[in-house]
């Protein structure tokens, strides 16, 4: 191998000295700086490291408040005090734990469990050993803090639900983020800064509007001495300016719910299983949203053991199920309203069309019964709605045809998700949150000719006859039924139901108002409207109407009863099993000529719509209309006064 230009090397030798001087000076400067830090300032720094311990304190941000439509507080934030234990700070680990055992009255196994948790943890990692201390416990711990150097009290903001289980499914609940979820949450929402143990909304509004409700945690840099006592910050001259970052509370959401109506509805359910929802037909706002049974969301603000959670999940009445949007039911006779409107609009029947009801209906070699064995006699569309004659609608359905039923049901908003609560995301073009359906909303199902032919379970005609009275493959959700009756009352407007009136700053200043999204709008002829509305009025108003018992004096209250079969008819009649009993349904509208409230109610295994579901609907309508009347009265008189008050509030 050849040497490269060896004769010039001598020139480089002198240059090498230049570089060695450069390096030497640099290293010398480092040594000078080290002398400054370790000798000149050494004592000061030694003090910092000897006497002081620095700690970053998390300042937990409260979640946004939830208010009802009148500004009544539904869910608030409260501080939760937890105890943490740092093994490395303990002087006598066992002694300190024994002291705590006396305060908290742990049993020996509970004590051992904590002991194991602490001794297995890394030296200086804080371990949570007690949550949600009572003021008494807190006072006891504070009073002995000198003997408990390893113990620290942590404050985090958690939810406080003011009305226990009455708003469980609509508001949802919050719980701690575990390590399994953390990674995926961080990836999906990097801007939210999720940390282990943070609170997060799990179902309902808490989950859907997590991005609004979640606050931003703050932090403080505090100096504590070896015993864990706080040292005056002024002594630490290295912090020239304030270093505290204040937590930012989440946004307050004012909901469309009316809490008085909500509570009355819950009360009306007693111990029955089912759900009810009330919508303002003109605006599409949800006024009440009840699903029973429900749980008290406050129990989830503390870490909950897996076995407790599993036993709740396994409860036979499934309290986690949202029966307003999350469960399919056959619409039963409530569907007759769509059948009637569709028949009249398409011309397959007219207001004067009559069918004779002998109590049964024969088609081919099969017989369909009317719920009334002795038969209704001659029926037109109005009386058939009022008395819920099945035979009339078997005939009407056959005349109408399955595909025509299909398209009319779609117009009334059946067979698809209502996308309740999506008004908040309406201007977000990519709408990622729409993928997260409210409480995993179900879509329902409308049978079509194609579907029947592809399945071959039954003939098209049989499916058509069944669909005429809302049985067969037809399924719906309770929110769809409420949307349907609301559309009947408001002239064909199908809304995506609205949950949030406005978002506010924690101070109460409104950031943005929301409006429900009009999903579709269909027009019914005056004749059709008149006939169907007369029908629902007679359901309650006429002595022979199926829900005459639920009339409200002085109120134009209309509705339709329904019975959703759980098992085949003869089986439910012959068996005494409660879970074979039919579901009771009721949809209602009031006042009919100027609708202010539309309701849909189901009572599972309640058997008869008139006796089980209609009274609940009546209670809801009455409560809400009475309240509106009372408000109108107070508003009429002292107008100036209330205005003044409103300003004061702002």
């Amino acid at each position, binding site marked *: 191998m050849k040497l*490269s*230009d060896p004769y010039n090397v001598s*020139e480089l030798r002198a240059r090498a000295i230049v570089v060695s001087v450069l390096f030497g000076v640099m290293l010398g400067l*480092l040594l000078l700086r*080290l002398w400054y830090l*370790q000798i000149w300032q050494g004592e000061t720094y030694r003090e910092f*490291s000897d006497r002081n311990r*620095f700690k970053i304190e998390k300042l937990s941000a409260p979640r946004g408040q939830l208010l009802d439509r009148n500004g009544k507080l539904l869910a608030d934030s409260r501080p939760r005090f937890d105890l943490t234990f740092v093994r490395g700070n303990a002087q006598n680990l066992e002694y300190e734990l024994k002291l705590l055992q006396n305060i908290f009255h742990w049993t020996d196994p509970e004590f051992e469990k904590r002991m194991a948790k602490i001794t297995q943890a890394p*030296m200086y990692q804080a371990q949570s050993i007690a949550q949600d201390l009572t003021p008494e416990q807190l006072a006891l711990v504070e009073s002995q803090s000198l003997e408990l150097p390893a113990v620290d009290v942590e404050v985090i903001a958690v939810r406080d639900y003011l009305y226990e289980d009455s708003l469980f499914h609509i508001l949802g609940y919050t719980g701690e983020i575990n390590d399994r979820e953390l990674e995926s949450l961080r990836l999906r929402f990097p801007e939210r800064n999720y940390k282990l143990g943070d609170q997060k909304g799990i179902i309902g509004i808490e989950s859907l509007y997590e991005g609004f409700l979640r606050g931003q945690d703050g932090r403080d840099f505090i100096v504590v001495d070896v015993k864990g006592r706080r040292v005056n910050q002024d002594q630490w001259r290295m912090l020239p300016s304030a270093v505290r970052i204040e937590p930012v509370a989440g946004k307050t959401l004012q909901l469309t719910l009316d809490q008085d109506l909500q509570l009355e509805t819950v009360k009306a359910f007693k111990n029955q299983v089912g759900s009810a929802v009330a919508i303002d037909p003109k605006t599409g706002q949800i006024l009440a949203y009840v699903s029973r049974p429900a749980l008290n969301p406050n129990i989830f603000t503390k870490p909950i053991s897996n076995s407790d959670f599993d036993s709740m999940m396994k409860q036979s009445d499934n309290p986690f199920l949202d029966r307003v949007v999350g469960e399919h039911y056959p619409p039963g006779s409530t569907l007759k309203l769509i059948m009637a409107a569709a028949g009249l609009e398409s011309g397959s029947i007219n207001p004067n069309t009559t069918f004779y009801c002998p109590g049964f209906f024969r088609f081919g070699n099969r017989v369909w019964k009317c719920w009334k064995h002795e038969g209704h006699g001659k029926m037109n569309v109005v009386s058939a709605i009022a008395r819920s004659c099945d035979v009339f609608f078997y005939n009407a359905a056959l005349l109408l045809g399955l595909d025509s039923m299909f398209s009319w049901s779609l117009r009334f908003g059946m067979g698809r998700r209502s996308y309740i609560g999506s008004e908040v995301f309406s201007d977000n073009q990519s709408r990622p949150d729409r993928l997260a359906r409210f409480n995993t909303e179900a879509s329902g199902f409308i049978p079509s000719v194609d579907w029947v032919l592809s399945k071959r379970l039954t003939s098209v005609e049989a499916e058509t006859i069944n669909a005429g009275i809302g049985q067969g493959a037809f399924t719906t959700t309770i929110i769809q039924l409420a949307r349907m009756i609301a559309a009947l009352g408001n002239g064909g407007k199908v809304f995506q139901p609205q949950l949030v009136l406005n978002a506010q700053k924690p101070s109460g200043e409104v950031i943005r108002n929301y409006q429900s999204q009009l999903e579709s709008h269909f027009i019914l002829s005056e004749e059709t409207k008149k006939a169907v509305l007369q029908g629902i009025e007679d359901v309650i108003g006429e002595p022979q109407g199926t829900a005459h018992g639920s009339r409200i004096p002085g109120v134009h209250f209309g509705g339709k009863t329904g019975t959703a079969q759980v098992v085949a008819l003869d089986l439910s009649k012959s068996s005494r099993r409660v879970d074979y009993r039919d579901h009771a349904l009721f949809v209602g509208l009031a006042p009919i000529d100027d609708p202010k409230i539309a309701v849909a109610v189901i009572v599972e295994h309640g058997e008869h719509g008139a006796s089980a579901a209609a009274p609940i609907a009546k209670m809801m309508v009455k409560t809400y209309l009475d309240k509106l009347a009372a408000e109108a009265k107070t508003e009429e008189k002292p107008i100036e006064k209330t205005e003044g008050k409103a300003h004061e509030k702002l």
Partner: protein
Amino acid sequence: MKNSEGSGTPRFWSNFDWGLFGTIGLICFVGLATLYSSTYLNQRDIFIKQIIFISVGFGIALIGTIIDYRIFERLAYPFYILVVALLILVTLAGKSVYGSQRWLPLGPIHLQPSELAKLAIVLVLARFYSREKVGLMHGYGFKELLPVFGLVGLPMILVFKQPDLGTALMIGFVAFTVVLFCNLRMQTLIIFSVSVLVIAPIAYKFVLKEYQRDRVRTFLDPGRDPLGDGYHSIQSMITVGSGQLMGKGYLKGTQSKLEFLPKHHTDFIFSAYAEEWGFMGSIFLISLFMILVFLGIDICRKSKDKFGAVLAMGALAIIIWHVIVNMGMEIGVLPVVGVTLPFFSYGGSSLITNMLAVGILSSVSIRRHIF
């Protein structure tokens, strides 16, 4: 090539640079002891892994010694092109760690091309200057430096884009040292320094990313955000300072044990050392690196050809600039840019780069008597 330089021969061992290897061995030993102190409470496996890394590293340095460095003269440009290609590849297909693309997964090994880039720059500059005939008498002006700017600038920009500010600066420092060594004209040096001073604030504003600007701001005022970026710097200074003259004693450093000092086994390991051994320890360690500088310069001066001299200078520059920048950031005179302390910080990648540099120095050293 003469055959007498093969490893088994007595000539090899008599020419072997025992002083260089002894110094490196001593630094590694002190480093390992510090690493043990930093990790024995929580992460013992790190210490064991580092022993393995160091053993492998010495093996690499020995292999480097055996290989005649002159072979690199031919390989310089191909290697340089390969590294640039890898840097482009890592930007396209690299593994992302903490938001920057630095690693190229190759089966079980993760290759970090930016580490290789430091070596590639040294090789390619040595090759460039060894064949350069002009300018030596008068020094280099800007015109002569243009190709050098191209050679250095390309990998620097690629590394910077990853983004890895620390390594990009390191490449720049090493290249600067080599150019300075190869007779930079005084006038050029002054113009160069002035233009850096002018360009720096512009680059700060338009080229650096937000988090990089943050580091610079934090360096200028560590109290600005003592919980975030300033935290490292402040805690590190407290750790070093609290060592005072004699230190707190081995295994007795509180700052690192109580985990007030972050990254106390990687980027901030010198602080942990200085806390336990005090100013005396600092003098000792800096003296060791000072000895390394003299040994390296000596190898460089004794080289019989220009290529070897420039190569040795580059290899020395890689090690020493790491020392200067790392210590500088640990004692609060340089921004925190994530540069490791050679032979001290835990981690295989940087250790292997540094051991390759030792191998180059040693290879040049052992062939000083070839005439």
